């Protein structure tokens, strides 16, 4: 049913406009950056440390988000309870915090003087100005995107499929794992991509909560910001590299998304 028609044209037009608008600024950055600089920016350890740290921390954050967030989203999708929309709204609130404010909030909550500060200190957990702190900040900023996306995906799964799994002797955990997750797979992997991308670009909250120590808390966006005021071209180059790398990784996620676990059919 892929016939051409005014509507199909309209769809294509919409996609073209969207794509152009979203891609152009990125292209522009590459255009502004002589290829040489790309290589150079990979040459400096500051950059390499930053990229490497970004990968590690965003991955860690993503894992935390998925491990804790998936059951939470499943619960929100499958259970009805009073005040549910309040809970859901609460989950969305971190989105509207300007990054720096989010950082302040994290400090006020988990910082040395924060509500939980002493508790964490007693437990010997150091977050502020530590890599762990970066992961906390990224998790805080990116989690809402995954949670809501996963919730929507789970909600779209036909309840009778879960019921069928149960009658076939699968406890809810197995039904969740073997039916709900694969059936919501496409949506879930989308949520992962969104959350990961968001975390990778995070700047303000990390800077405020974890500082910007090369190799410890200076993620790529922080390194970029740092060199803004010291070596502007290098900043752009590093950004370009960041984009290139994440493009590659996101494409990989897509291919993973085709795998049986996430969306495909298991023969």
């Amino acid at each position, binding site marked *: 049913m892929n016939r051409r028609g005014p509507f199909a044209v309209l769809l294509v037009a919409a996609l073209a406009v969207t794509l152009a608008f979203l891609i152009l600024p990125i292209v522009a950055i590459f255009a502004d950056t002589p290829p040489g600089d790309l290589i150079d920016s990979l040459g400096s350890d500051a950059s390499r440390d930053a990229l490497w740290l970004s990968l590690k921390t965003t991955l860690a954050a993503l894992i935390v988000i998925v491990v804790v967030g998936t059951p939470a989203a499943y619960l929100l999708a499958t259970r009805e309870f009073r005040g549910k929309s309040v809970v859901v709204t609460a989950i969305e609130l971190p989105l509207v915090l300007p990054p*720096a404010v989010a950082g302040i909030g994290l*400090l006020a909550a988990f910082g040395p003087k924060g509500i939980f500060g002493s508790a964490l200190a007693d437990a010997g957990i*150091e977050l502020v100005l530590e890599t762990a702190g970066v992961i906390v900040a990224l998790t805080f900023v990116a989690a809402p995107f995954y949670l809501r996306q996963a919730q929507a995906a789970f909600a779209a799964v036909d309840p009778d499929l879960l019921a069928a799994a149960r009658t076939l002797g699968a406890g809810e955990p197995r039904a969740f794992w073997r039916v709900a997750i694969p059936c919501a797979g496409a949506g879930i992997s989308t949520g992962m991509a969104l959350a990961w991308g968001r975390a990778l670009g995070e700047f303000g909250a990390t800077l405020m909560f974890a*500082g910007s120590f090369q190799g410890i808390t200076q993620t790529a966006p922080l390194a970029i910001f740092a060199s*803004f*005021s*010291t070596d*502007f*071209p290098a900043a752009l180059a590093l950004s370009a590299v960041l984009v290139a790398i994440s493009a590659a990784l996101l494409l990989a996620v897509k291919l993973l998304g085709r795998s049986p676990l996430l969306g495909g059919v298991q023969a």
Partner: protein
Amino acid sequence: GDDSDDTSTEAGSTTAAGGELVVSAAASLEPAFTAYAEAAGIDAKQSFAGSDDLAAQIRQGVTPDVYAAANTSLPDDLYADGLVSKPVVFATNTLVLAVPDGSQIDSLDDLTGDVTLAIGDEGVPVGDYTREILGELPKEEPEAILDNVSSLEPDVAGIVGKLTQGAVDAGFVYVTDVVATDGALTAIDLPADLQPDVAYGVAVVDGAENPEGAQSFIDGLLEGEGADALADAGFKPPPPN
């Protein structure tokens, strides 16, 4: 249970205590401070951000050993609130009028014409200094210039970015920032009589885990490798008092 907790606390503390030094410094100091740490072989964890971001952190209980700002007002406020020791001025910078490479503008007077400016917001060091200069100018000029201001930036990066991308025609930044753009921007020196003293203040943070290290680091800034590194980066020494 217990012992694992202990070891982790051990680990936590050793990283900070073992001679290591934690420095929070204004973004514009990055090249100078990194060079300094290398030259002097100081094992320093350095975090560079907007002076006020770092101040906000300290207010929230974050305790680096050293706090170096791009002005003196922020350290003074923290000192007044008993969060840092008495600040000292360790360097001065020069405010310049920055314009994109090849711009027609070559003096303050051109700013009253049909041009757009980006300047630092009030409370942001670069913004306050800019206002100081404009204050010195003859009567009507300041209004004329301020009327051309189309963006009040919370940090220097915002101004530099807009200048390099031609979003505005001119802006007031530090000479060090212009140097950093690799020729994308040109600095137009301001009349010496207008030049504000852009002083950089540094202080030891109360509750620092390594106060001795902090103090020696600061001393190094006033004379020695630190001072040299600052000079190389285009900073001027503090005014003799």
